């Protein structure tokens, strides 16, 4: 599935992805930015669920992205 663009919550755990776009307002983008998730950031999916929140690994941090956020984030599978 390499190279495909998907919402974050649809990527299976263990894959490595790159953040491509955020479908949402400035508030959301800025929040993500502050936490180190800007466009182009690479991270790994630890836990994902179609209806639920996701856990991702950015460098040495684990972030929870709530249900609302995780399908607003578009990523590219790079693993």
């Amino acid at each position, binding site marked *: 599935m390499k190279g495909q663009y998907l919402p974050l919550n649809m990527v299976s755990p263990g894959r490595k992805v790159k953040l491509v776009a955020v479908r949402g307002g400035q508030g959301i983008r800025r929040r*993500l930015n502050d936490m180190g998730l800007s466009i182009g950031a690479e991270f790994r999916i630890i836990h994902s669920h179609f209806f639920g*929140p996701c856990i991702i690994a950015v460098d040495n941090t684990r972030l929870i992205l709530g249900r609302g956020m995780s399908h607003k984030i578009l990523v590219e599978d790079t693993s």
Partner: protein
Amino acid sequence: MQKKLTIALAGNPNSGKTTVFNNLTGARQHVGNYPGVTVEKKEGTLKYKDYSINIVDLPGTYSLTAYSIDEIVTRNFVIEEKPDVVIDVIDTSNLERNLYLATQFMELGVPLILALNMSDVAKKQGTKIDKNRLAELLDVPIVSTVATKKIGMKELLDEIVSLVEARTEPEKTIVHYGKEIREELKKLEEILKKDKPLGEKYPLRWLAVKLLETDEEIIKKIEESSFSEEILSAVEKSTAHLKSIFNDEPDAIIADRRYGFISGACSEAVSRNYETRHTSSDRIDKVLVNRILGLPIFLGLMWLVFRFTFKASEPLMGWIESAQEWLGNMFGGFLPDGSAIRSLVVDGIIGGVGSVLIFVPIIFLLFLAMAVLEDSGYMARAAFIMDRLMHKIGLHGRSFIPMLLGFGCNLPAIMATRTIEDRKDRLVTILVNPFISCGARLPVYTLFIGAFFAERIAGNVLFSLYILGMIVAIVMAKIFRRFLFKGPASPFVMELPPYRIPTVKGLFIHMWERGVVYLKKAGTVIFVGCVLIWFLSNFPWQPQYSKDYNTLIEQAQENEGLVSKLENEKAFEKMEKSYAGRLGRIISPVFKPLGFDDWKTSVGLIGGFIAKEVVVGTLGTLHSVGEADEESKTLRQALQNQKRSDGSRMYNPLVAYSFMVFVLLYMPCVAVIAVIKRETNSWRWPIFTAVYTTAVAWIVAFLIYQGGMLLGFGG
């Protein structure tokens, strides 16, 4: 003469800031509030060399963009209080992301020291940092620390002193945003210069950056300026210009450049091979946040928390009760018998405040248990597990913890909403919390269920009340989200800390900080409330009795049964003629459609405003059964036999259920009102809560009673 210094301690959440703070200040810390907001302000002092150093622990934050209260507090403190030094505590194993906040402090031009904390963890992971080179590149002093082992604390203090004594103006704005942005910033700075007072307060360049970032707080500030029109139109032009060049919002580009600056510096001074400190945490998480196991494990842990809280607090509550009794006897002993002052002290203050103090052990132990879950890192997982469910009612995972705490006592539950960043989410969570049935309602349920329901269904009736409370909370949350606090659920991003073993010291500091707030603040309001209720139910002090009780009692000295009967009658009549009794008569027609239009019940409900369990005690007095508790047979019988003026029975199972529903849902106790006032920092929300919960209680009890009558349950 010692020189005074103010040091601000800042940093990302989970960077070990609190441990550094505790190390530096030890027991010499106290908690207050930042003016105007309810974010806790922790301060501590220490003496070092010639200096008396006051350390202010700023709320953990990822950036200085005005997004949450915490970030605004941090920013305003640094700008307005002008601390002598800002220490930015950095999680070294997450260097780049943590430096993002540091770049913003640099931009502000504040005297800054970076504490590279958890440097041992980073080393273990194979990260090598050339500290001197990094300090040179970033142009800030850097100290390596391991807060958990108290390493680097002295060096940190030395660095503070040398930074203060050097007194060099810090180099401003070393982040380079590139030619295009720099030009726009310059233009904006030129215009901003015109407003002199503004320039004295804020660094101009920083203001310009914030304006390009469309920082709402700053825009509000600018709108007050006499040059606001000129400034804002220039900002609009610059933004449009930059957008046309980069095809992106300026704030995104600015953030990009900051990360670029950071990674530039790090690539020169840091070498690493990745190894993560999360490996063991990830392994534990495979089980604890598992799709299937996560929820049952979470519920099991919660069950343990409550079991622990209530089991362990039992003996402590017994002690408080005895202490209260002892105090009552002592004061009762030397204050004149039958005097108003004795009654005020013994019944009003010691009895009233005591009925709330009795909850102190529960609250402290619940906080202790919660501190274990929090400090170990599990709380963040719980929020994760519940996020899906909470999303359905327009809230997110973080709102779940306070709801759960509500089953113990709504008070700490409302205080626990502080972890919720979004103001709307927080308010909704606070507003619906009183519907979660707390421990204080239980005595009322036990009394009424025992009196009017068969034993075999008693458990189900009780359970149905708890469920009803939750359903009402959920429905109200949905309604508030829909009408009062519109807008989509706030974005929920949260860091998942690695699992840690909590330190005993940390746990106790956590428990103490929160518990003391309950004691102090709520205590004052409870005190006033108790005196008020005491006054209402005891005055007029010498009413016109229908009989001369004193003489009758004296005459009947031989007959103990008669004496106690007369005393009960006297107490009853006194209550009937008191202000509370009169008030009860006035308001009881309101309850007619709900089935319990009895003035005694109404007085009981007024008493329930102090604490819900007071309802039972008040009913006991009014039904002249003397000391009453929920086990009291005579009170049960008195309720069962109570008749209306037309001779029909006042209560039946339907009326009793309607009454319990009302007790469950109507206005929360005075302590909860006090804490809502404290947490929202206005009288608007506590008053709103008292009014709307009572309205909801009335409506739901009405539906249940009238519906029940229609279905023929009234007999």
